[in-house]
């Protein structure tokens, strides 16, 4: 059977065909064509995803797993089909290892709350890295505070990589929680290697995959992690959707983190018992439309060949890196050898907020500030950066527009 991915591989990467599927790319910003380089914050959505989400509301809207009526059955089937699509995409063993959440933040809060209760005691340690997003720092801080545990941090090298010689594992380490790809630096971290080390020590491993899922092939069994969290909206799916993958054996031992409908087996005022996986962790009505949209986003990425997209984004990154460095006083923060399409930079005498504002006036959307990684900003001695993050629909011409836009901005500000 010939798939769309085969076709893509045969005829080469057609960025114009990809662009044609994103309605928003026809929008003007301040009268100029939108150049969207804030994909690490949230990606744009292809028409197929938008359609899938609205088709749910227009044709099969009903609550899942509850009614005997036809619509409820159809909605349930559509949601569970999406779960199966996600399972296959990340190569989980079972569909019930895929817990549907509202996003990476919810996934990590679930993990930290539940694992904290299961594992942490006074004096225990949780290891994270110095480049984590706040949502992979603060939930662990909360868990540590609750149980008297300590947070330990893997230091970051000047190029923006983990210093693997200084991983603070000890006999007290219970949990390792690390980002697969840095949202600020773009660094692709050697998660598999560190997970293997942690496993030997009996440490439970949690991966924040928010920035990896849109770009890398994710194979949770190959990575060997216990839990893997990601968002739908950064991977061409709807906002308000996310996943926490967990190994069945661990999920079975983890206590629920939110109570409510759907997550129970029986309820009496004396004691309730929990539903089986994954429902034990899915209290309340899920974002059904969004989950269906996420399933479609994943099928869309597979159809258009995620690895071809990643290659294209890498070409953009290399071009952007080369061109940006021609700008006087510009310094790239994050120069790891393995990166996704993220370029974060500071320019002498130019405030990132000013630059972001002037780029916006030219129709170019970038992110400015600390990118929810304040400790990492401190590590590099900057208050913030300007960050351009690429997606499958971006072009070399857009990168050139960015470079020209930055040059114009710098000229105005100096």
């Amino acid at each position, binding site marked *: 059977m010939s798939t769309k991915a085969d076709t893509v591989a045969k005829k080469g990467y057609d960025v114009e065909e990809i662009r044609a599927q994103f309605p928003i790319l026809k929008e003007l910003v301040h009268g100029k064509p939108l150049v969207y380089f804030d994909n690490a914050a949230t990606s744009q959505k292809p028409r197929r995803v938008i359609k899938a989400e609205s088709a749910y509301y227009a044709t099969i809207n009903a609550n899942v797993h509850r009614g005997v009526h036809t619509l409820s059955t159809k909605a349930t089937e559509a949601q569970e089909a999406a779960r199966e699509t996600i399972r296959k995409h990340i190569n989980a063993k079972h569909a019930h290892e895929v817990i549907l959440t509202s996003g990476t933040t919810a996934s990590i809060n679930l993990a930290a709350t539940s694992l904290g209760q299961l594992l942490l005691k006074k004096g225990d340690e949780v290891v994270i890295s110095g480049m984590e997003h706040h949502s992979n720092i603060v939930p662990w801080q909360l868990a540590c505070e609750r149980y008297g545990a300590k947070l330990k941090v893997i230091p970051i090298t000047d190029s923006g990589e983990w210093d693997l010689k200084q991983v603070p594992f000890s006999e007290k380490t219970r949990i390792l929680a690390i980002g697969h790809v840095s949202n600020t630096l773009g660094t692709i971290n050697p998660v598999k290697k560190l997970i293997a080390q942690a496993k030997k020590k009996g440490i439970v491993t949690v991966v924040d995959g928010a920035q990896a899922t849109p770009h890398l092939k994710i194979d949770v069994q190959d990575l060997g992690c216990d839990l893997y969290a990601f968002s739908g909206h950064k991977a061409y799916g709807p906002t308000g959707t996310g996943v926490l993958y967990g190994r069945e054996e661990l999920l079975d031992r983890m206590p629920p983190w939110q109570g409510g409908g759907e997550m129970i087996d029986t309820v009496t005022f004396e004691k309730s018992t929990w539903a089986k996986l994954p429902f034990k962790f899915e209290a309340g009505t899920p974002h059904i439309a969004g989950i269906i949209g996420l399933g479609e986003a994943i099928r869309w990425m597979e159809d258009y060949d995620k690895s071809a997209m990643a290659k294209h984004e890498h070409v953009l990154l290399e071009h952007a890196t080369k061109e940006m460095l021609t700008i006087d006083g510009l310094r790239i923060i994050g120069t790891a050898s393995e990166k996704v399409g993220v370029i974060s930079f500071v320019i002498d005498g130019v*405030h990132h907020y000013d630059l972001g504002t002037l780029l916006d006036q030219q129709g170019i959307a970038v992110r400015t*500030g600390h990118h929810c990684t304040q400790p990492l900003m401190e590590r590099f001695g900057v208050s913030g950066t300007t960050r351009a993050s690429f997606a499958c629909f971006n072009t070399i011409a857009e990168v050139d527009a960015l470079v020209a836009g930055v040059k*114009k901005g710098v000229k105005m500000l100096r």
Partner: protein
Amino acid sequence: MTTIMSIAQAQQEVVDEFALFSDWQDRYEHLIELGKDLPLIAPEKKTEENIVRGCQARVWLNAEEKGGLVHFTADSDAMITKGIVALLVRVFNDRTPQEILSASTEFIDQIGLRAHLSPNRANGLSAMIDQMKRYALAFSANADQA
């Protein structure tokens, strides 16, 4: 005593001034220039308390009362932000607390800086105006007690 423009007149002057610029680049260059005229806050007043919360760039704003009028000084580490503060200071400086409290701020909208007014955490214009009005309120309360 020479006639002093009212806040409304000062705002209209700003609106007229910005109407001269047809494109964004001139408008922002003008704003950056205006920032250079901002009455700078004394270094020792650049304290935590004088930082305006809600701005992505750092903004310091101080107010003192001189002869019943509120006198502002400020600074920012970002130039566009500094320009915006300068505009506000130009309009609201050396007014009575009552004038400041009752003034509208629609002029910001009219000069094409709407994006800076949006109530998100990156754009602290509303926060700056609130802060100026809070100073005015504090001085007017003091005046009532006196």
